[in-house]
């Protein structure tokens, strides 16, 4: 991998070599992940020595699983990128080709790091390379702004992580991950709670859980689409990896409120994410908000697992953690696939604005097909993969509520209902995205010149769609794999009671509803052909519009589609609208009407705006120190010297 990196750096002009190396690198990552999963045990290898310090890397089932996730997405994006990058300028292409392998490489390094220093170095590399990729189109003001926000957010998180590791070192646990696994559970509960909170801020700001999510919907959409796929599909999962490692690998069994906090954060993130996604008309921004939603679902699963562990139920813990890990993989698959299809749409039409797209199904049938399939997967509909992991999460939450203390039951029920509401809203959102963007009449975007994407740009999304269907049909493999990883991670041997297992992945109950589903599908197909033959005289006519002709302007837009949701959840959205009549000589006959509506982002306005204002105000205050006058600076020097002398002299 290092070799590929160097090769890329040396000759960025030779495109083909770069592409092959990138694909090779992704295959290597995937192979490492799969081998690590198949391999017997975690073996820690010492890679580099700096004096007495060693930088350690190693691999265990948890790391391998995330490596495999990285490898899959990387492979799809690498194939896709061979064509997709061509519509950037040469300078931008060089930038993308140089940074993408380093970005993926640093993510892999984070996953295999086995000591705090290596971890932090890799983490920082990952942040910086992804920042570089976010600002590829840095001539645009909004891109620079988004990039800056991302930089601030990611470094705030990194600060929390440094604090976390510093606190561990201060308590004599050194920097090695192995000593953490043994040492941390022995620390006091108060300190461990602080560590958890630091981890939630540090990893949470990268994973974009609410309220640390503000950077994501701005930064992900402005990056090149295959980079968005990597960031949304994998990078935020790397943060989830850190959270899993911290909560389940190191911290040990904690008080109940840890799990409650995770569940609360998960439900909030998923609902806030999907509600804002519904109001978005830019496809990439919409997808970015859905990343927040899905991270919320993953954290919800983690919360259920933590609750199961605190209650001393090993099967529940393993099952819920398996659900969360499965959703990590699933989200990586469908979200990166969706970003890739939207990238194709952007490349073909020049926009991703739903209000200007439409009717792409007839021009880009394969891209549309992939988008519809992946939409169904992300909504959690059978028989696709999102369904399986959401099923498992839901089941563990329902199981948690059984015979539990009122507080636990309340948390579980709120989690389950929140998940159901999220699923329903996501359904509405993706009917909107696929229906308005790809079906219906053609609107203004790229009139005339639009063509179906080239084969490398189809191969990625279509392969991911097939994978999503496959994992939805055979979820048992991933379910048991996740449970194995979870069992390996639990340090405290929880007594395994061979109780009746009331939890199951889809399709495994008696009578095999899977076969039934397949039967129903086959029956439907047969019926379809039978009917087609029976009604040879199918007709195609203009649709009905009260006797008139259907104008494009009449068709439902994304704004009108989500209008009623905006009204129902008005207390959350605080919608604002303004209607201006232009040229009103007569009040009822305006020459033009200007209508604007917007929703307010409560967290941005009430949490971050004051912080931002405060920071700017203090910066303005500090600016008075910088007067520019030489005499004043000499005065500062003298003052500092005096202060130093007084301090040292004492």
């Amino acid at each position, binding site marked *: 991998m290092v070799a590929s990196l160097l090769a890329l750096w040396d000759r960025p002009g030779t495109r083909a070599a770069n592409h092959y190396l990138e694909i090779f690198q992704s295959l290597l990552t995937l192979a490492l992940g799969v081998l690590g999963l198949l391999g017997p045990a975690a073996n820690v290898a010492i890679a580099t020595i700096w004096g007495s310090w060693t930088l350690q890397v190693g691999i265990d089932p948890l790391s391998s699983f995330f490596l495999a996730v990285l490898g899959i997405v990387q492979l799809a994006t690498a194939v896709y990128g061979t064509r997709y990058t061509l519509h950037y300028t040469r300078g931008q292409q060089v930038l993308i080709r140089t940074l993408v392998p380093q970005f993926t490489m640093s993510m892999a390094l984070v996953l295999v790091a086995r000591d705090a220093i290596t971890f932090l170095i890799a983490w920082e590399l990952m942040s910086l390379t992804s920042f570089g990729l976010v600002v590829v189109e840095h001539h645009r003001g909004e891109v620079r702004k988004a990039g800056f926000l991302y930089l601030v957010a990611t470094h705030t998180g990194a600060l929390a992580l440094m604090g976390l590791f510093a606190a561990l070192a201060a308590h004599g646990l050194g920097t090695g991950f192995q000593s953490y696994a043994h040492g941390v559970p022995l620390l006091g509960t108060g300190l461990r709670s602080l560590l958890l909170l630091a981890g939630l801020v540090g990893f949470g700001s990268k994973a974009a859980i609410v309220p640390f999510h503000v950077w994501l919907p701005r930064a992900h959409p402005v990056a090149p689409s295959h980079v968005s796929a990597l960031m949304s599909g994998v990078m935020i999962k790397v943060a989830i990896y850190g959270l899993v490692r911290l909560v389940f690998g190191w911290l040990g069994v904690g008080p109940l409120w840890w799990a409650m906090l995770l569940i609360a954060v998960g439900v909030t993130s998923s609902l806030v994410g999907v509600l804002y996604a519904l109001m978005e008309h830019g496809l990439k921004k919409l997808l970015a908000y859905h990343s927040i939603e899905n991270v919320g679902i993953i954290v919800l699963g983690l919360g259920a697992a933590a609750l199961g562990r605190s209650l001393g139920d090993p099967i529940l813990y393993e099952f819920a953690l398996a659900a969360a890990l499965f959703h990590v993989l699933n989200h990586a698959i469908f979200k990166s696939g969706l970003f890739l299809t939207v990238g194709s749409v952007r490349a073909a039409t020049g926009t991703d604005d739903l209000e200007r797209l439409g009717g792409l*199904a*007839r021009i880009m*049938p394969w891209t549309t097909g992939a988008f*519809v399939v992946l939409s169904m997967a992300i*909504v*959690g*509909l*059978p028989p696709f993969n999102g369904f399986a992991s959401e*099923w498992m999460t*839901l089941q563990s939450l*329902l*199981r948690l*509520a*059984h015979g539990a203390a009122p507080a636990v*039951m309340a948390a579980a029920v709120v989690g*389950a*209902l929140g998940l*159901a*509401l999220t*699923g*329903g*809203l996501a*359904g*509405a959102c*993706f*009917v*909107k995205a*696929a*229906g*308005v963007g790809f*079906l*219906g*009449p053609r609107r203004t975007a790229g009139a005339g010149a639009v063509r179906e994407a080239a084969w490398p740009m189809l191969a990625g999304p279509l392969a991911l769609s097939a994978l999503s269907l496959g994992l939805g049909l055979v979820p048992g493999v991933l379910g048991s794999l996740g449970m194995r990883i979870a069992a390996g991670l639990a340090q405290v041997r929880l007594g395994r009671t061979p109780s009746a297992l*009331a939890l199951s992945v*889809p399709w495994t*109950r*008696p*009578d095999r*509803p899977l076969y*039934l589903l397949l039967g*129903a599908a086959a029956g*439907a*197909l047969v019926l379809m052909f039978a009917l087609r033959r029976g*009604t040879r005289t*199918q*007709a*195609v*006519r*203009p*649709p*009905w*519009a009260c006797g008139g002709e259907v104008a494009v302007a*009449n*068709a*439902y837009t994304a704004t*009108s*589609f989500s209008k*009623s*949701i905006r009204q*129902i959840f008005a207390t959350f959205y605080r919608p604002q609208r303004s209607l201006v009549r232009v040229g009103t000589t007569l009040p009822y006959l305006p020459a033009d009407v200007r209508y604007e509506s917007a929703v307010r982002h409560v967290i941005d306005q009430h949490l971050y705006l004051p912080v931002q204002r405060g920071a700017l105000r203090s910066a303005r205050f500090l600016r008075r120190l910088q007067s520019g006058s030489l005499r004043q600076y000499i005065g500062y020097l003298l003052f500092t010297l005096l202060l130093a002398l007084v301090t040292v002299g004492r």
Partner: protein
Amino acid sequence: MGSVLQVTLLLALAPLAQGVTQSVKARLQGRRGPLPWQPYAVALKLLRRQAVWPQGSTAVMRAAPFVHLAAIAVAAASLPLFSAAGASEILLPLFALALARFALGLAALDTGTPFAGLGSSREMTIGAVVEPVLLASLLPWAVVAGSTAWPALVQASLGMGVFSVVRLAAFAAAFLVLVAETGRLPVDNPDTHLELTMIHEAMVLEYSGPPLALILWGTWLKQIFLVALVAVLVFPWGLAGPYGLLWTAGKWLLLLAALGVSESLTAKMRYLRVPAYLATSLALSLSALALQAAGVH
């Protein structure tokens, strides 16, 4: 095998169930109304007709009726209607119904007409709120059972007093969802073609001929499935006894008649007030759950 027979039976009976409700409604309105088997005639008529597709529609619209019907059939197969042995998970119908709704909602936008878009928007909005409420109505049984397998839920229901407060609250909650999910007054009006009030009908307005027959059949199947679900969960007695079939038929008839009566007694509710209506069902479900947790049976 048992579940295949079960689906076939439900498919065969679905139009009759619709006809029963319609004739109850007609009687209450002082009309004689059509005979209960009128829906069979309607479906047969549509199956013989030519299908007319709107210009510019794609495979999405062609495939949706099949996906819709197949998804509801899977949901119907998961019920423990005649024996608990072949039954599956309560989660499966939830997901399958969501799939059916998604298919029709997407197909509506495929037509590109404002009416279908309007229907799709309304249906998906209500669907988003219905999903947690539907799940909540299953909670009183699922949480007690500690499982999401049908047999365990039926056992949990059997273990509870016949006229317990919990059962009554859970039934009220389930009935409110039943009305909403079958597209009946006060949520939706199945008899109208007025764009201001219709939801489901607007969504499928562009369908005709055999595809429309499939959609109608799917909707009828969904209705009888939901009726059977409430019957088996809330009134689980007599499932396995010698007169099991008779009991089941009786329960269904009562519930179908109740649907017709309730529809005749209520007026259409403003569409944006539907979430408040569904919240009532949610509150009832959660109170049933809380009562149970507090030890009331």
